[in-house]
């Protein structure tokens, strides 16, 4: 429906040349990726497997386009299409070489993937029922297409600090999540003039934000100007250095709303004065055909139930819209092909992809509902389940995403089964939005859900898959609200927890307008209470199920998690280890159990060693490799002081060794790694300022031996310092220390003052420590 920009063929040729350069190793992988991702081509979790994300403005695709997309997919070896939460369709599981053929073939049918990923203007969303919704202000779809046409033809739409998301809503219920997008338009009419209320700055993800109102009303002819100014604002003030803090909302966090609005107004005025802001709103003629089919009458309770669940009236008399559910948005290419082929006879405006990853049919004359029903049955599409089971959404999760922590799809499957098997009145719950994300990123859009989950690593003695629970998002142009964090649950218990919660809600539903008002009232407390019943995670030996993620036959681990396609994810991974370091330090403070402390110390060394490997593109397959990689790439490269090498080596060789005497050094090592990370620049390079390796000055001699046995901490250290203060740099001091607390503390403290510990040896029940003064 949108118009392809003139230079697209050239860009596809460019991309083709880059692929061969990349395969010939003539260009850096990172450089290639910088072109590939903005082209809408992502690498999947499995190495060498790619997907192409096809732009579908407002979720629109014509039946013949769908048919052909399916043909293209099959032609290049993909059996699977996928509907995204931004109303696009993806061709998955293809090889890199074939992506370029796909781009060329898509071009022939008027579709493009440019801007599917990277720091670009992403697919522009529109309310899925726009144009047919009896309650809408007006149809926003033509504006969605108009803005798409404009923006994808502008070069600066591809070179933004981070992704830029736009949405159009047709009603004040904000059915397209306008207030959760970087730029949102909600249809308004003022004195008979069509226009929009405009929102700016919102987005989900870490530290999410609901957009504030930028304009109460702009006439519809200004959308191009308004979007242009927003894009320029973002381009000028967005943080290009730290992708972690690059989305437009961070400009608001940094400068404050008032300042951002002032800056916006300046840019807006500049552009307005410069003129030439006209945007062409396409006159979209949707053809609705009466097909050459004999209407089929279907009689029976199953059909009636289907109609009740999946079929809605339109504002156009006699026409209906139908939800065709696809679990996880997965559409087998064959089914997509048949759908497209079959639907062609109903006209070109029959299909929309929904944000809940289903296909919505529209403009179906009433007399053909039976035909559609029979066709769906024949095609093998699920028509007999309550709507709720098919509107729950998840991101792809650790199945294919390199950032995934949990198998969100597996969890959703588990939840579907649990709900189906429950006796709950699911048809009463059809409007509840349940979303699951495999990691703290927001691809599963959990922050906009009634009930959302995002994957985290749970930990007791070992790791287990777990989820943070969020609830109570409100979509509205007046009081939009993100789902707030309300508890934690193991992946294992997620389905049972949800069923129990919904059961509770059903019993109280009559008192509430909807689920979010229930959450705003007593729901939150109900969740907390419910969570406390699930917070005992059995030990591995007691119930191994907790340590396997849904649908996985392997014990839960993060192996395979890697450098994200969205580089923001990289920082999440690093943060994961950084948080593990911090958490383990906290745990150490809370216990005196030496075995536990030893384990936490091990976890700190482990996380410290792993934390930055990802910046070097290293994904170790096991612990041995992990420690080796850290030594080779960080210690031997001089990024981390040599003096920690023994520690990492020792840990690698004997993971069960007593680490308590090395506690201070372990802390220092983790501090050094974190400091290194803080000094990392945008291209993942480190300031190389690690201290020079320690070398013992051959000429130095032991100047003094001091016996500090029998002296308690910290006085032994105080005395050591006093002795050292009298020495000159390079001199050696040997001290004798008791076993236990003294040997566990004093050497590390001495080292933290910049002196070197040359060696420490156990002699019977005490220790000799040789110190060289710095």
């Amino acid at each position, binding site marked *: 429906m949108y118009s392809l920009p003139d230079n697209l063929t050239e860009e596809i040729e460019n991309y083709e040349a880059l692929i061969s350069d990349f395969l010939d190793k003539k260009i850096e992988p990172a450089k290639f990726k910088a072109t590939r991702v903005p082209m809408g081509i992502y690498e999947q979790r499995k190495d060498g497997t790619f997907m192409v994300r096809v732009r579908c403005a407002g979720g629109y695709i014509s039946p013949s386009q769908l048919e052909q997309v399916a043909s293209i997919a099959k032609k290049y070896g993909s059996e699977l299409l996928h509907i995204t939460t931004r109303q696009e369709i993806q061709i998955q599981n293809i090889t890199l070489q074939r992506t370029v053929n796909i781009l060329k073939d898509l071009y022939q049918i008027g579709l493009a993937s440019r801007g599917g990923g990277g720091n670009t203007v992403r697919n522009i969303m529109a309310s899925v029922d726009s144009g047919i919704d009896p309650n809408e202000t007006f149809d926003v779809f033509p504006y969605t297409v108009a803005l798409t046409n404009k923006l994808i033809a502008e070069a600066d739409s591809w070179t933004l600090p981070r992704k830029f998301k736009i949405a159009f809503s047709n009603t004040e219920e904000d059915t397209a999540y306008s207030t959760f997008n970087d730029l949102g338009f909600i249809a308004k009419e003022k004195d008979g003039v069509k226009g929009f209320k405009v929102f700016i700055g919102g987005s989900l993800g870490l530290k999410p934000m609901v957009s504030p109102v930028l304009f109460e009303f702009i006439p519809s002819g200004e959308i191009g100007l308004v979007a242009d100014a927003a894009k320029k604002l973002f381009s000028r003030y967005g943080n290009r250095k730290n992708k972690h803090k690059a989305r437009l909302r961070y400009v608001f966090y940094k400068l404050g709303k008032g300042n951002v609005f002032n800056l916006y107004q300046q840019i807006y005025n500049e552009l307005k004065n410069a003129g030439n802001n006209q945007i062409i709103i396409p006159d979209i003629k949707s053809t609705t055909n009466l097909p050459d089919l004999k209407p089929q009458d279907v009689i029976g309770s199953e059909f009636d139930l289907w109609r009740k669940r999946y079929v809605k009236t339109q504002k156009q008399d006699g026409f209906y819209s139908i939800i065709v559910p696809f679990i996880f948005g997965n559409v087998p290419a064959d089914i997509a092909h048949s759908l497209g082929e079959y639907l062609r006879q109903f006209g070109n405006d029959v299909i929309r992809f929904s944000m809940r990853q289903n296909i919505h049919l529209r403009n179906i004359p009433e007399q053909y509902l039976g035909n559609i029903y029979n066709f769906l049955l024949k095609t093998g599409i699920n028509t007999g389940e309550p709507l709720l089971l098919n509107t729950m959404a998840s991101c792809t999760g650790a199945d294919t995403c390199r950032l995934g922590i949990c198998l969100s799809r597996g969890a959703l499957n588990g939840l579907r089964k649990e709900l189906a098997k429950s006796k709950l009145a699911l048809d009463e719950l059809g409007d509840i939005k349940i979303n699951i994300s495999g990691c703290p990123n927001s691809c599963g859009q959990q922050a906009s859900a009634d009930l959302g989950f995002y994957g985290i690593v749970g930990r007791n003695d070992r790791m287990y898959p777990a989820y943070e629970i969020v609830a109570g998002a409100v979509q509205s142009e007046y009081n939009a609200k993100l789902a707030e964090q309300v508890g934690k649950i193991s992946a294992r218990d997620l389905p049972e927890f949800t069923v129990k919660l919904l059961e509770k809600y059903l019993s109280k539903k009559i008192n509430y307008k909807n689920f979010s008002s229930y959450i705003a009232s007593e729901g939150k407390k109900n969740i907390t209470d419910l969570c406390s019943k699930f917070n005992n995670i059995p030990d591995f030996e007691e119930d191994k199920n907790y340590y396997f993620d849904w649908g996985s036959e392997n014990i839960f681990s993060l192996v395979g998690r890697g450098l994200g396609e969205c580089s923001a994810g990289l920082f999440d991974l690093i943060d994961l280890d950084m948080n593990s370091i911090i958490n383990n330090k906290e745990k150490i403070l809370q216990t005196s159990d030496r075995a536990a402390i030893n384990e936490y110390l091990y976890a700190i060394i482990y996380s410290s060693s792993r934390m930055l490997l990802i910046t070097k593109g290293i994904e170790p397959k096991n612990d041995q490799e992990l420690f080796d990689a850290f030594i080779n790439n960080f210690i031997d490269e001089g990024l981390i002081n040599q003096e920690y090498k023994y520690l990492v080596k020792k840990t690698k060789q004997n993971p069960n060794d007593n680490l308590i005497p090395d506690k201070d050094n372990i802390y220092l090592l983790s501090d050094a790694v974190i400091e290194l990370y803080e000094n990392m620049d945008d291209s993942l390079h480190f300031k190389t300022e690690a201290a020079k390796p320690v070398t013992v000055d051959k000429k130095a001699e032991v100047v003094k031996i001091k016996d500090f046995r029998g002296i308690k901490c910290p*006085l032994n250290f*105080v005395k050591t*310092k006093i002795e050292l*203060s009298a020495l000159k740099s390079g001199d050696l001091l040997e001290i004798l220390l008791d076993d236990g607390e003294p040997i566990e503390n004093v050497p590390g*403290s001495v080292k933290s*003052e910049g002196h070197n510990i040359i060696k420490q040896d156990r002699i019977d029940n005490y220790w000799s420590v040789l110190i060289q003064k710095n």
Partner: protein
Amino acid sequence: MNFTDIQIERYSRHIILKDVGVEGQIKLLEGKVLVVGAGGLGSPAALYLAAAGVGTIGIIDNDVVDITNLQRQIIHTTPDINRPKVISAKEKIEKINPDVKVKTYHELLTTDNINDIFSEYDFILDGTDNFPTKFLINDACVLSGKSFSHGGIIKFDGQTMTYTPGNTCYRCVFNSPPPKGLVPSCSQAGVLGSVAGILGTIQATEALKYLTGIGELLTNRFLIFNALSMSFRSVHFNRNENCPVCGINPTITELKLEEMPVCDL
């Protein structure tokens, strides 16, 4: 100098600190700090300086302890009422730390005695309650090249800055005392007792940092806090070239007390 075993134990928590250590503790023991005013600010400051082992602490105050002082002047106790503040303070300091030598001045700080007294100290801690004396301390320090900590409190607010030669002085920011009556004194406006503790303790910290030479002093900036919102702000002030005492063309070249004190707290 050599520490006695008792000193090693007494100051062990300082010596352990990497930035203080043996050397820093020696500097403290050799340091000399004058606390001007044994009141709300001077009380906590003197206690911490004493505990830290600042070798010589001078205290100047002309007043006796009044029952209204005890709500915040924590170096004094109920039995001290009607006794000179300097005596009361000296006794407490000596009990806390016999290492400290206390010199007392039971008199007003004036243009006549200020230079003589200041010359005996490394650092001056301004715990006064009136503007004329604050300006006098500033001018004396600027003209004689001495460092000091300024502090002021009222109601729930406090402010402090540290002057060292060459940096922004109190007059760079405040040209002269406010007109009489514009800024209420503590006896008129009141003050939350612990606010005095917070600010006096910050001033003591500045003195300890100055003596040991560690960290960054509050030079060229004011630390301003409000206890109700418990918010701390640090506001930068550059030197003022029109400053009447340290500017390019200074008009104050000799000391004079601008006005009689308005408050007897």
